[in-house]
């Protein structure tokens, strides 16, 4: 069978004299405790500046960044954004506990539906487990709480992220995801999203909305913290 034939050929290709036991120990050690690689120094900055970096990358990458200081302000901020973009007052969302417990009655004109995205839904609403400042990237874990289709089928995707969940590096963002889910409960997909869908395949012109959302809005929720150094 091909599996064993391929593995046998790979073993034949190894440098002679490398004991298999020692190799296996080294590989297991690396898997158990992976070495940390270089993390860009750009993330070593005070927390508020880190959030500024996050925002500026997202803006460069054609996303809209919105901010509210309190969770109670989220429904109205979303309704205001949709109105300002001339979009239907509608949001498809999952069962995310943070989003579910928001005071939605404060934005009575906003229709909400629950579940996976329908192809015709104009707006999908997700919560990110982490925001990564190093490149302006949101990490969303798929599942009933935040169905993956919300991020790709609707024309507009709105992502809510807690200010305290904005960290410097991918490593720190992933650590937050792991804290929420546990390593043995990885979501089917961890989606790292850094802007609206785009393509350069027509003569090198960058055009938004290739297959996924034409618009991405990121809503940061929370008060500015004191200026302690992150990481």
């Amino acid at each position, binding site marked *: 069978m091909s599996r064993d034939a391929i593995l046998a050929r790979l073993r034949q*290709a190894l440098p002679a004299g490398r004991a298999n036991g020692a190799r296996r120990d080294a590989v297991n050690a690396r898997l158990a405790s992976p070495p940390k690689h*270089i993390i860009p120094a750009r993330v070593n900055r005070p927390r508020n500046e880190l959030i500024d970096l996050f925002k500026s990358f997202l803006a460069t990458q054609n996303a809209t960044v919105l901010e509210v200081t309190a969770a109670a302000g989220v429904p109205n901020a979303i309704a205001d954004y949709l109105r300002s973009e001339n979009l239907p007052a509608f949001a498809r969302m999952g069962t995310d506990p943070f989003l579910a417990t928001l005071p939605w009655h404060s934005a009575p004109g906003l229709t909400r539906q629950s579940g996976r995205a329908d192809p015709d839904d104009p707006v999908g609403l997700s919560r990110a487990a982490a925001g990564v400042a190093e490149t302006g990237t949101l990490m969303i874990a798929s599942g009933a709480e935040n169905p993956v289709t919300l991020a790709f089928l609707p024309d507009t995707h709105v992502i809510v992220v807690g200010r305290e969940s904005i960290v410097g590096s991918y490593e720190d963002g992933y650590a937050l995801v792991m804290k929420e889910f546990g390593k043995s409960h990885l979501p089917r997909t961890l989606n790292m999203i850094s802007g609206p869908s785009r393509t*350069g395949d027509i003569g090198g012109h960058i055009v938004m909305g290739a297959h996924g959302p034409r618009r991405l809005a990121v809503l940061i929720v929370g008060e500015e913290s004191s200026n302690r150094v992150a990481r």
Partner: protein
Amino acid sequence: MPSVKPTPEEFASNAIAALGDSALQHALAELPKGLAAKRERAKAALPEFEALRRVGRNIKDHVLDNLDLYLEAFENNALAAGSHVHWASTAQEACDIIGNICRETGARLVTKGKSMVSEEIGLLADLEASGFNVVETDLGEYIVQLRKEMPSHVMAPAIHVRPSDIEATFRHHHRELEPGRNISTPEALVSEARTVLRDKFIGADVGITGANFLIAETGSAILVTNEGNGDLTQSLPKVHIVLTSIEKVVPTLEDGWALLRILARSASGQEIATYTTITTGPKRPADPDGPEACHIVLLDNGRSELLRSEYRDVLRCIRCGACMNFCPVYGAIGGHAYGSVYSGPIGAVLTPALVGLSAAANLPQASTFCGKCEDVCPVEIPLVGLMRRWREKAFDQDTSWRNRAALRVWAALAKRPALYRTAARSMVAILAVLGRSKGHLEHLPFASAWTRNRDFPAPQGQTFQAQWARQRGGGKR
């Protein structure tokens, strides 16, 4: 006309045709240079970039030294996550595995994300021959599929096509749409493709994607796109197939983060691609969306042989395309002239290993050895040295008496300075007389291939060696 069938043995005639193809030259004038300039800006914005290239190289070297063990670890963890893992020694075996999955699923419509491995194994043609309706979903791949071409770049498959030609292609194929519609802008073309492909995404029974990296620690596949087509391809159908090759595995996500930091910057000059998706298995029981089954196909197709060859460093490649964007030869002739799935410097090294040196002996010749490709390679593949080794091997196998005799004559001259000087002096004198009237020569004996497209300037004055001797003898002027 570029075809979907690889023809590396026709490189010389392909290259000449490419140089005379005005549409292609129009496309090549801007695009590869644009991508190269974006890469330079992204590199300048990240002071750690050069150090990360070394990290990327070390990660890949470590994997190649332990590839069997990391593949076993990957398999164990992928199975634990609920994926099926298939191993394919050959291209045909991989096609058969995927064809069987499609048949067992009762599939009619199959969507496919961008995957160089799928090009390598001829998956599209194989599935179509089995009666499946297969649609490429990456916009560039969709365009080349409609045009019945091969991709001409690993990252930008339709880089050779002008927007006006894309408009003509869409008008020819999207017959169901209003003939009077205006699709003269890139925005309108993208919007039309979005509408047409939306129905395919929703109607597909099986979605096939590639993988940029596999993570042994978690059994995950990482897929990077800008369009989001890979995500719609993997999340809407009931079956997701990941088709990838064995050298894509890396130990852990720590290694994944490091490689992601160099991939997009090298490929498109972005800080990060729009969508990076880490996929681990099929949908969970409570998930409202996602595929019911996830199959991962691991292709060898000559890589295990490459691993024990002097060309093993090419297995570090992460398919960013930077070597193409910076290559003066690629920039002059584009990807199709190489007549192979992989073009540019990486194609010149990889193709002889995949299809045999006799068919692809011309490709390692397609380099000026300027070395820019290895300067920009994010995993420091010594592309020039590897091309040189192929050239040496090709010379050893060269059975042309003419080539060998010519080189023997040249070697005999070069080893005897006095004889060389005399021969050069006579040659310069003869050519000067022959070219006296026009100042150039239109034909040279034994060099008609060179003079077919250009004139050879008639020598002016003495040979270089004579001038050098005189200048040294006469002191500085």
